[in-house]
């Protein structure tokens, strides 16, 4: 039990991200409302961002902006700066996520225009008849 607790404490970020991911995935698959699905998708994506960003954290390190002249003169100690690569990746991922959200919302408006509702079961009912 203490082992598990220690594991959770040592990696609590990862635990949080998994829980958020589960919330998001659940909403994407299980919710009938289309907007809720999209919210779930966004939560899923932020969970992934959390995973990446967590992987870049270093104990006792500063933000990845350095003093140019000092860096040129003395170099930078990698242990003093957090890992910038996940940040870069996640900037791209955020952009992708907002793009997908935008397109999805546009499609959502089209669906509403067509069926007058955003509930999946009601739409399927309307198609059925």
């Amino acid at each position, binding site marked *: 039990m203490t082992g598990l607790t220690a594991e959770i404490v040592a990696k609590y970020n990862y635990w949080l991200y998994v829980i958020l991911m589960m919330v998001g995935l659940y909403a994407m698959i299980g919710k009938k409302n289309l907007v809720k699905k999209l919210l779930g998708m966004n939560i899923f994506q932020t969970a992934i961002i959390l995973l990446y960003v967590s992987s870049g954290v270093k104990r006792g390190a500063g933000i990845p902006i*350095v003093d140019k002249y000092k860096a040129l003169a003395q170099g930078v100690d*990698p242990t003093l700066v957090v890992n910038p690569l996940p940040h870069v990746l996640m900037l791209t991922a955020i952009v992708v996520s907002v793009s997908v959200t935008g397109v999805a919302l*546009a499609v959502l408006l089209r669906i509403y225009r067509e069926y007058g509702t955003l509930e999946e079961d009601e739409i399927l009912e309307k198609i059925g008849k």
Partner: protein
Amino acid sequence: MKAIALLCSLITGAVLLYGVQDFAPWSDPASPASTHVSSHYIRNSVPETHVPNIVTAVLGDYRGYDTMFETVVIFCAGMAVICVLRRSKS
């Protein structure tokens, strides 16, 4: 549907957590993610690009190809929304 969704997310979560146990502890400076490529960026980005913000340097130059397509993604999204929503003028 709800049950399936719950099951799916639980399985996914369990598998992900199963994988997590292998990771280096959180915020470990010696973890592979923080040492291999990233320390190269931290050390060399300023001398090689003269940009103090390492993220900008990596984003704009080392991984500029990614960023180019990121812009294309945004552009696509805009075009797609216009395509989907605007009715043709005719």
